[in-house]
């Protein structure tokens, strides 16, 4: 479109980009500084990562009020959006980053792998994730997706001493590359149909070009993009990678993938479907419905027969993805406004991110040196050894099961309310019933923690120890889970604002 010689660089609102810049700059500085200096003292790598994450978080809070006051807009020539949806996603990502870094701190020292690399990759992945939640252009979205994914591939394989970790990395890389290809092909076809990759133009193309709703390019493009996104959020039937990768990857990395990875992918899904492609909603909504049902059932039913806790939690994470898809489905009914579904989806993501990091933090601690003791038996008698840790794990598991007075219940009510408001009763019922099936799995873990005695010969095993940083992370996660359970009003109000998106046609 741009004629040679008349290139006008877009004006850049640096303030609006500040979380991104803080994370990117922080990551680069951390890597360079750490490469040039000898080994840093204990905790320092992790805590500087946390500091960077908190700095980014602080900027988002300033921006939140800025948007409330001045309204949402698009940035960098319409490539990125600056709105509450993006900020809510960014906040979730920063929280996930800080908590995961705290858990990783002790993990790396225990496994004898301390170094700045993992934190650098965390920060790069977070940059990719933030680009995804802010994106207002398919190409930019793809850039974010790849930045996140490549960092995650390396992270999954980062434990060089465990062959499972290597396997997880390769598996994730091959399948992830495959799904990226699908997504990219989808972008190409959408571009073919609408003449643009920008969400604003894609939306407008429906009226102005005009693109027929039955246009084959567009329909296939939507389908291929759903495959790509479905893979990233590990929705059935694109979920097969996730149990293997979740189980094989080092446990804190799994926590990071399940929180930050999922948040970015779902926020991107909302952006693509609700903001760019609402005109095809009658075509993609039934697909989301079917995928949601499949995901819920596959996740909860497969989880029941597992014996490894990491694998169980991987399937439970699939089942949670099904719940989040409920929110996407509900948002689809409302179309471009996305009134009901989007707040529910984003609130679920924030609550789930904290929950899943808390849960995996406990699993990290119980995994003991070598990160291998993650079968159900390793949790036997945990309440006798570490009553507080057992209590925290119980809070996380009850919250994942959706028991009231925990954040998990509020999350579930949020999405159920959204679908019921759109009269999708069948979906709501299926979701709640599958939550009961999934509850069986959490009960199985709790039985081992509280009601079973340690296995015979267990005294030879290394005792479970809770190190400082991980302890802080677990306490923060448990505190958040209970606090939101008792007093959820502020989070509901905040998430209600995410429908205030940068309207494609108002941006510049």
């Amino acid at each position: 479109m741009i004629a040679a010689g008349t290139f006008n660089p877009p004006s850049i609102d640096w303030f609006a980009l500040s979380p991104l810049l803080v994370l990117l700059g922080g990551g680069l500085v951390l890597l360079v500084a750490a490469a040039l200096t000898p080994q840093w003292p204990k905790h320092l790598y992790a805590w500087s990562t946390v500091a960077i994450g908190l700095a980014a978080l602080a900027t988002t809070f300033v921006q939140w009020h800025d948007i409330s006051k001045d309204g949402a807009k698009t940035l960098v020539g319409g490539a990125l959006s600056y709105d509450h949806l993006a900020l809510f996603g960014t906040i979730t990502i920063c929280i996930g980053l800080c908590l995961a870094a705290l858990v990783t701190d002790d993990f790396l020292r225990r496994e004898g792998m301390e170094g700045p690399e993992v934190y650098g990759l965390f920060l790069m992945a977070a940059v990719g994730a933030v680009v995804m939640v802010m994106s207002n252009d398919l190409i930019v979205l793809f850039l974010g997706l790849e930045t996140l994914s490549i960092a995650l591939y390396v992270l999954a394989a980062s434990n060089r001493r465990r062959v499972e970790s290597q396997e997880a990395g390769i598996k994730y890389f091959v399948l992830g590359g495959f799904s990226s290809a699908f997504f990219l092909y989808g972008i190409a076809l959408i571009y073919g149909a609408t003449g643009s990759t920008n969400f604003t133009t894609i939306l407008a193309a429906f009226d102005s070009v005009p693109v027929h709703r039955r246009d084959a390019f567009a329909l296939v493009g939507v389908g291929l993009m759903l495959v790509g996104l479905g893979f990233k959020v590990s929705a059935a039937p694109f979920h097969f990678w996730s149990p293997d990768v979740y189980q094989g990857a080092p446990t804190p990395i799994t926590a990071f993938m399940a929180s930050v990875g999922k948040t970015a992918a779902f926020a991107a899904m909302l952006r693509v479907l609700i903001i760019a492609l609402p005109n095809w909603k009658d075509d993609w909504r039934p697909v989301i419905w079917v995928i949601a049902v499949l995901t819920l059932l596959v996740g909860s039913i497969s989880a029941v027969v597992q014996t490894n806790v990491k694998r169980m939690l991987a399937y439970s994470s699939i089942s949670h993805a099904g719940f989040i898809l409920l929110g996407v489905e509900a948002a689809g009914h409302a179309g471009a406004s996305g009134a009901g579904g989007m707040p529910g989806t984003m609130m679920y993501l924030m609550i789930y991110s904290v929950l899943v990091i808390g849960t995996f933090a406990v699993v990290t601690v119980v995994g003991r040196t070598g990160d291998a003791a993650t079968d159900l038996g390793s949790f036997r008698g945990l309440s006798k050894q570490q009553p507080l840790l057992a209590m925290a794990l119980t809070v996380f598991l009850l919250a994942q099961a959706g028991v009231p007075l925990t954040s998990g219940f509020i999350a579930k009510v949020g999405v159920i309310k959204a679908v019921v408001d759109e009269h999708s009763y069948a979906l709501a019922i299926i979701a709640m019933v599958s939550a009961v099936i999934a509850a069986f799995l959490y009960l199985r873990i709790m039985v081992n923690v509280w009601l079973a005695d340690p296995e015979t010969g267990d005294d030879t095993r290394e005792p479970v120890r809770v190190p400082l940083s991980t302890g802080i992370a677990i306490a923060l996660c448990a505190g958040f889970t209970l606090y939101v359970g008792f007093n959820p009003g502020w989070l509901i109000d905040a998430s209600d604002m995410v429908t205030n998106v940068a309207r494609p046609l108002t941006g510049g």
Partner: protein
Amino acid sequence: MSAIATLASAEAATSNFPVLTALVLVPAVGALIIATMSKRRPEWVKLTAILISVFVGALSVWMLASFKTGSSDFQMVSKHEWIKTWGISWHLGVDGISLFLVVLTGVLFPLAIIGVDPHHDEKPYLAWLLLLEAGVMGSFLSLDLFLFFVFFEIVLVPMYFLIGGWGYDKRIYAATKFFLYTMIGSAFMLVGIIATVLLAKGAVGHITFDLVELATKSNFAASTGRWLFFAFAIAFAVKVPMFPLHTWLPDAHTQAPTAGSVVLAGVMLKLGTYGFLRFGLYLFPQAARNSREIFLTLAVIGILYGAIAATMQKDLKRLVAYSSIAHLGFIVLGTFAMTSQSVTGGVMQMINHGVSTGALFLLVGMIYERRHTREISALKGLQKVAPVFAAVFTIVMLSSIGVPGLNGFVGEFLVLIGSFLTARWWTVVAASGVILAALYLLWAYQRVFHGEPDDDNKTFAELHWKEGMVLLPFLAAIVFCGVYPKPMIDRIQPSVKALISHISDKTGYVEPQPELHSGETQTEVVQP
């Protein structure tokens, strides 16, 4: 926690003492206190638990004393915003239907705590029991659908741990079964609650989970109302439990520790029958009327099935568990017969069943403590060696059978005469359940207590005075309510009548006469 704590303090400043809020929060805070105490001094832990539960019991009795008789309104209401955006508030209130259930809860817990020794890990056991009490209290007092659901669901957690941690051999299986069964019912109810609120938004004018506002202002189409009612009904039917959703109950009861069984039978099952009255009939009167045949039939099947199954049991505790299914069938029958006698009788039966079955479970627990078996065939001739124990057991058993002069009779009789007016043939069949109750209980008594004691039964210890003190309140309630039920009826009936007239207003239902006037005694009622 802080949100609710500030609510409580705000309330104290603005009104009289918020007794209902205290009834919920004191045991909850008590559980927290116990959880933080040192387990090296179990006697202090136990004393604290007893003091807290006795204090709650005293509060509930004080609440009973300050309850205004003759009024059908919700009393001692406390209402504070909780989640404003979703129209959810901390809304508690008590009326004739919930009054005695609350008192029963308040009184039953200290007795269960004092009367039963968990044998190990006392501290978490007591903390869970107090948390359970808070949940049960909250369920009976909530006037907000969301708040009710929170309490209704939260009681599962302490009960799960009580059964799983302090139960008998197959406790983990039973606890898991209990949790999942109840949760699947709740799954439907949660969707039902949210759908009710959203569908009523137009008629009510704004989004609210407030029960009274929804019941008075909402107006559902017949088919919508039916689906919503069924969504609630599944949760309550599991909880009651009604045939064919009852299979969790025998396992849960048999495996639960004694205090768990007492609480489960005494008050937790009533969450189901109470739910039918408070949320089923009140919110969806038309749907409840339209589907009454289904529930009447299931209730009668439950009465007969529970009785027949109880007859065949080899385990004394399992027998009592099945008898609960039969007794709760009467309550459901009374509820769906929808006359003021039958519903009043149902409410009374909830209390009576709680008292007599609670006492039966305590007694069976005492037998187990002595003999380490509950097999009926292993027990023989206990009457010879423990006559006082046998006498107490007899009174409780007769109350459970429904012998005139004891409390069981009053409720059952009111249910039957009330139901006869609107559900004649169901009542006729149900009446045979009364005879069956005599059959299985007397037969069991005969096998356990009569004859010459053999082997270990010879050394069966007589009732200890401490056990006697725990059982004494039960016996007093059994006799008092059987001889002089008027004070209870006077308090229950206005609310029941208000509920029936609410149904009449909404559906054009005309309650058949004769009516029971609050001044009359039950003997006068027999002659219409």
